[in-house]
Structures are given as C-alpha cells and as structure tokens.
C-alpha cells in the first residue's frame, strides 16, 4: 500500500512539476515581451531627449550667427546702453529694499544659517510653501560669496568615521531629495554629501531643491560639496523649465533672481577629487582632458555652453566686436567679450560637463547630444593612469537602475531622479563611499501607490506617453515625411513596405529607433506587411493660432517652438513679454535662413501682422507659441483607460 501510494505521489508530483514548468515558461515569455516594450519606450524617451539637446546645441551656432547680423537692430536702444554701463549689482540694491510681509507664512531663515534652517526649509517645502524672494536672493548672494573662495576642484577626504554620499542628477525632483534624506539622513558635518550637478530644470521644484542644497552648503561649507552640471547654465534653464518656474513663482522679483543665479552658476566647482583616487565630475572626459589645465582655468568665465568664445576677430574686427558687446549686453547685460575663456579652455569644461562613456574604444564627438564627446574604456584608462587616479564617478545619463558600472569598473554612473521620463521609467540611486571601502549603492523609487503596480500597467503608462511624444515629432514633420513616402511610392498606391517606411522615418526624424517594431503602434500595416503611410498622421493635428497660415510654416513653428521661445526670451531682456514687429521679422528671417527653412518673406510678414492681434505693433510671442500644440484625437479615452 505504502509503495503504491508513493508511486501515485510521484506521478502526481511529476504532473505538478510539468504544470509548474509550463506556467513558469509562459510567464517568463510574457514578462520578457513586456520588458522589451518597456525598453522600446525608454529608447523613444532617450533619443527624443538627446535630439532635443542636439538641436539646442545647434543654437550656439545660431547665436554666433546672430551676433554678426543682429547689430543694427539694437544699436540705438537706449535701455540697452544703460544696461551696458551698469556695474556689478550691489547686493544692497537688490535685496535692501525687499520687505517680507507679516502675512508671509513660508519659512523664515535666520542668518547666519544653521542646521535649524535646513530642517525648517525641508519641513516647509514638504508643505508646499514657497521661500520668499528676499531669502532666495540672500542665499544666492551668500552662496556666490562662498563659492568664489573655492578652487575649481574640491578635494575631499573620507575617514573611517566619516564617509561621503554622492548624489547624481536631481532635476528639480524634490521627492527624490526627500527620499534620499529619509534613507540617508539630513546633511550635516557628520553626514557629508556631494551633489554632482543638474540640480535644476525639468522637475517642478528646481527652486526648492536648489535652496536646500545651497543652504546646506552654507551651513556646512566643509562637508557639503557641489559640482556644476550642464544644467547649471542660465541659457539651458531658459529652455528646460527653470526660468519659467522662477518667473511663475516669483512674479515681482523673478528677474532679479534670474540675474543673480546667472552669476552663481559659473562659480560652482567643476569637479571633485576624493582621497586622491576618485574623480567626480558631472559628464565625463575626452582624450584632451587636462586636469592640470582644468585646475587653473578661470571657471567663472564659463557662462553658458550656448555662448562659445567668439572666433574670427581678425576679419572685420570692428563689426564683430560691436556685435559681441551688444549681444552680451542682451544676454548678461554686463560682461564684455574680453571676459571670455580661450576656446580650448572653454572646450575643456564642455567636455567635463557633457560627455558620456561608451563601450567602443576611442573618443568621438557626442553626436547624440551635440556637445562633449563619447569616451571609450581606453580613454578612461589613459586619463586615470596619467593622474594616478582609480575611478571616475559621473552622472548625466538616466539609468534604469539608478546607477551603472562600466569601463571595467572604472566608471560609475549615478543618477538620482527616479521616474525621470515617466512614472516607473527608472530608479534613482546614490553612492556611499567609506575610507578604503568599495562604493555602496542605494536604490529607490518615488511612488504614490503603496503596492507594486503590475508590470503591464507600468508598461502601458510608459508606452502611451512615449508614443505620444513620438507622434508629436511625426506630425511636426508631416510635410517632409509625406514627401519622403511619396518618393518611394512609385505606383501611387498610398502604400510602401515597412522597410521603406522605417527608412523614411529614420532619415527625416533623425531618431535611431526600432521603427519596424514601433510601426504596430504608429501606422496601419496590412497583412502583406505594407504600410498605409498617410495613417502615420492619423488622430492628430497641430492646433494653429493663425488659421490662414500654410501648414509648412505651422509645422516649422511647432517644431522649433522651444528654440524660438528661448531666442525670444533673450531678445525680450526686460521680460515684458512683448517684442516689436520689426524684431520678430528680423529674428524669424535670421532663424529661417540659418536653419535653411524655406519660407518666403511675404509669409513671415503675413504671419507677423496676423500675430499682432490688437494692431499696436507688438507681439506677445510667448502667448503665440503657447497656442501651438498637437491635438490627439483619442486623448481623453486613452487617459481614462490607463
């Protein structure tokens, strides 16, 4: 009996084993397909982000170009000449007259600052309070004063009793900073931190993040360290959100805050060296990175990656020089061109702030971002050996797990903004270093829900948001894409093969993406594998504020709307929000000729006059650009599903 029973049991357990295998096998397949879709969504986010940066970097050429052509426009502007004469702003002039009203219920800082102020600030920001402009300006002035005394590279020592925590990009994501403090403790003399750049932009709370970091630095200048990132750049802020955040939060003093901030950024150290072994920088290195030179560079002259040093002074010196002064008058209102770094020094800093490591040997221009370079494992090894260092810790790139180790363990990436692209897109991480110990990694993810969301839900949220972004890119190139499709459609059937479609998408949009796989989400494909190419544009259209305008000009405006907005912000130095018709025409003409956009002058004139709604000769350009957006037909039903 016992024998029969065990035979039965073993037969039964064999069946159970087989059943379990089937289920496990099926589930692993299901999970893998979802994970691949997640990866596709991430690829979209990443390539669109880098393409954006690239087009932004192209703007720097445009600025040089503007310098040569813009001179006559502003020459007789009396406001501007006044600005040029103005000397370095007196702190007193800035904040002496600001009063904090009794009704203000935000945090009140006490100078000199102490640990209590850090706690006060954190608590207040948790309750969505806004720090009064008076305190913001005071903190900025003091930070600048302290930073000025710092060398280009901070040298940090760890000991057995005192480690160091390194955080990567925060990008205005306050919840991530709070989570780090919750897990790792508030900054203090016994709990040192190094924040490795990109504190601001993109997130909603850049000001709050920046204030907590600066106040911590002011309280513990020996133990809290700051590195500059590529977003600690006032021109980048114009495009990636921080300028807007400041002007929204500080209606009266926003402009003053922006001007002060612009002077703080260049004083943030460009890197740190820990225990003479680890180099911590925001981006990376290039084959020409020279740490000795970088130690000596006058870093405060590096205002923005978008303002490269002027070249070609020898030809037409007079004109260029005037151009430079007027341009820098528009931009910084006081620095003259003589304050520029030599080009090779400027490039040294750009490489440090913008570069990314790659697996391929050698050093290549960073074609993805348009600035800095890609550096291979050999470049890392050579540089580390040359300066007797062991590792590079850098940030700058979003990583799914919050950190990543490459180049044979010699390069560590750490990124501290979780859910960077979309809810669930990535974890954040920070590193703890102890004296003579291997780096320890801590991961986290900010979430609103208490339990784990099923994978398919996370994937579909990410996927639909990625597809949405991609579709907006597609519609903004409708004219060019349609042309590319039609060229391949020899028999005018309205259909082309998936391969031809994928090729057209890649060549026009310049995004290296798995188009064949994505085609299922983007177009109608028939059973023979042919694409109904006009369905690439279904369910969306660009809302145009000017009904009469041609679609080509509308697409161009939509496509370059962030670039145009940024240029507009620069021209509109008094932040009135208005520019004259003449300025608009000139700006647009320059822009279109620089980008080789084929638009007739008459079209621009027409557009300009339609835009002047109340016919007073000035244009509210921000409002105008805001009026452009892509209408997604099924937006509402999609949203309620997810």
């Amino acid at each position, binding site marked *: 009996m016992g024998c029969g029973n065990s035979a039965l049991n073993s037969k039964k357990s064999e069946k*159970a084993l087989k*059943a379990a295998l*089937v289920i*496990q096998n099926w589930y*692993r397949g299901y*999970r*893998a397909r979802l*994970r691949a879709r997640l990866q596709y969504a991430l690829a979209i986010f990443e390539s669109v982000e880098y393409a954006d940066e690239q087009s932004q970097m192209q703007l720097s050429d445009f600025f040089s170009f503007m310098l040569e052509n813009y001179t006559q426009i502003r020459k007789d502007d009396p406001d501007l000449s006044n600005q040029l004469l103005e000397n370095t702003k007196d702190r007193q002039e800035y904040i002496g007259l600001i009063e904090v009203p009794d009704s203000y219920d935000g945090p009140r800082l006490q100078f000199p600052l102490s640990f209590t102020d850090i706690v006060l600030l954190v608590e207040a920001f948790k309750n969505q309070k806004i720090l009064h402009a008076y305190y913001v300006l005071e903190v900025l002035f003091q930070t600048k004063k302290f930073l000025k005394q710092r060398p280009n590279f901070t040298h940090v020592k760890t000991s057995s009793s005192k480690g160091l925590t390194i955080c990567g990009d925060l990008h205005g994501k306050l919840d991530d900073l709070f989570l780090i403090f919750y897990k790792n403790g508030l900054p203090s003399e016994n709990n040192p931190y190094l924040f490795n750049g990109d504190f601001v932009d993109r997130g909603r709370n850049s000001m709050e993040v920046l204030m907590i970091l600066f106040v911590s630095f002011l309280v513990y200048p020996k133990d809290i360290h700051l590195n500059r990132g590529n977003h600690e750049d006032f021109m980048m802020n114009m495009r990636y959100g921080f300028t807007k955040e400041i002007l929204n939060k500080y209606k009266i003093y926003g402009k003053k805050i922006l001007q002060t901030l612009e002077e703080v950024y260049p004083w943030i150290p460009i890197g740190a060296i820990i225990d003479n072994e680890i180099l911590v920088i925001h981006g990376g290195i290039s084959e020409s990175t020279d740490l000795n030179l970088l130690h000596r560079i006058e870093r405060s002259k590096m205002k923005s990656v978008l303002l490269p040093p002027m070249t070609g002074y020898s030809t037409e010196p007079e004109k260029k020089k005037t151009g430079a002064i007027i341009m820098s008058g528009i931009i910084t209102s006081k620095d003259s061109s003589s304050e520029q770094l030599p080009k090779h020094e400027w490039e040294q800093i750009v490489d440090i702030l913008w570069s990314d490591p790659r697996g391929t040997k050698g050093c290549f221009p960073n074609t993805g971002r348009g600035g800095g370079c890609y550096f291979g494992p050999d470049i890392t090894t050579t540089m580390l050996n040359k300066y007797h260092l062991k590792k590079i810790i850098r940030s700058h790139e979003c990583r799914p797990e919050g950190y990543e180790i490459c180049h044979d363990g010699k390069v560590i990436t750490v990124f501290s903004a979780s859910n960077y692209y979309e809810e669930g897109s990535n974890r954040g991480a920070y590193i703890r270093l102890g004296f003579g110990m291997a780096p320890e990694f801590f991961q986290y993810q900010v979430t609103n829900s208490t339990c*784990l969301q*099923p994978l398919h839900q996370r994937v579909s949220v990410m996927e639909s948001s990625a597809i949405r972004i991609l579709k907006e890119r597609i519609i903004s190139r409708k004219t060019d894409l349609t042309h590319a499709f039609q060229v391949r459609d020899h028999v005018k059937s309205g259909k082309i093969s998936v391969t031809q479609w994928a090729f057209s998408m890649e060549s026009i949009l310049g995004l290296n993406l798995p188009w064949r796989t994505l085609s299922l989400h983007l177009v109608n494909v028939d059973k023979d594998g042919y694409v109904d190419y006009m369905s690439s544009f279904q369910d969306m259209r660009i809302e145009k504020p000017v009904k009469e305008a041609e679609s080509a000009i509308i697409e161009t405006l939509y496509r370059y709307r962030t670039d145009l907005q940024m240029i507009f912000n620069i021209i509109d130095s008094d932040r009135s929000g208005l520019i004259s018709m003449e300025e608009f025409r000139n700006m647009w003409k320059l822009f279109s000729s620089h980008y080789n956009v084929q638009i007739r002058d008459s079209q621009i004139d027409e557009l300009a006059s339609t835009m002047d709604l109340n016919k007073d000769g000035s244009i509210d350009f921000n409002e105008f650009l805001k009026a452009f957006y892509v209408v997604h037909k099924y937006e509402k039903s999609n949203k309620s599903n997810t």
Partner: protein
Amino acid sequence: MTIRQNILRTSKVKVAEFHKRIKEAFEVFDHESNNTVDVREIGTIVRSLGCCPSEGELHDLLAEVEEEEPTGYIRYEKFLPVMTKVLLEGRYRPIPDDVLLQAFETLDSAKRGFLTKEELIKYMTEEGEPFSQEEMEEMLSAAVDPESNLIHYKDYITTMVIDEN
C-alpha cells in the same frame, strides 16, 4: 522559375525579414551601441522575438552564442546566425492558452477554480525552474485578487491575454 528556386527565394526573403527583427530587438538592449548586450538580457531578447524557451533551453542557447572565454557580453555577430536558425526552425513555440489553463487545473487538484496565493508561491518557487523573488512578486501583483487573496486562474489568463494585445 522552378519550385526549388521559388522556395529558395521565399526563404531568402524570410531570412532577411528575421535579420531585421533580430537587429531591432538586439539594438534596444545594446546600451553602449557597440554591438553587444549584457548576457542577462539574452533571455528577454529571445523571448521578445516570440520564442518561449525554458530556462534549460535558454542555457543551451547561451552556450552557443557565448565567447570561448565568457565576458558577460554577447556579440551581435555570434547571436544573429544562431537566432536566425531558431526562428527559421520555429523552435520554442509559445504556449497555447488551453495548455496553460490545463497546467493551472493540474495544480488545482481539488478543482475549485482557484489557487491560493500560498499554493501558487509554493509551486512557482519550489517546482520546475523556480522563480526569482522579483519574478514571483511581479506575477503576484497582477494575479492575486486583493480581496480574497486567491488566484482565479481562468480570469487571470483571460486578462493577461487581453492586456498584451
């Protein structure tokens, strides 16, 4: 055109098609853009191409594509021919829904129409090719009815199939 030529031609088209699919699936995991992927991603890539190998079969497949001295990375040149062959031969077919349902029914020996959370955890982490903790947690997050703590597997399979399409 002879029949033989015709077959040859069709298979050529097929191979070209497979190559494109494999390239795309490989490329999204090639984070350093140097035609390699982390060896741990190979399972996801193979499975995302519609194949359902068991862990054992995957292991054998890996042995074919790995370098003589494993580097932790798989090169595209090695992966492409092996994967093309797998797709051409139609190996590792996906598991049909009815087979999956039968498997759940086998584990539900009392024929109640559900498994308890504990039962599922036991089978999935102790039998067959056990799940990692991460895999288990992920499966449970979608499978378990939060009110009763039970897995009504028939409904579960249905929703899973719908979700994926």
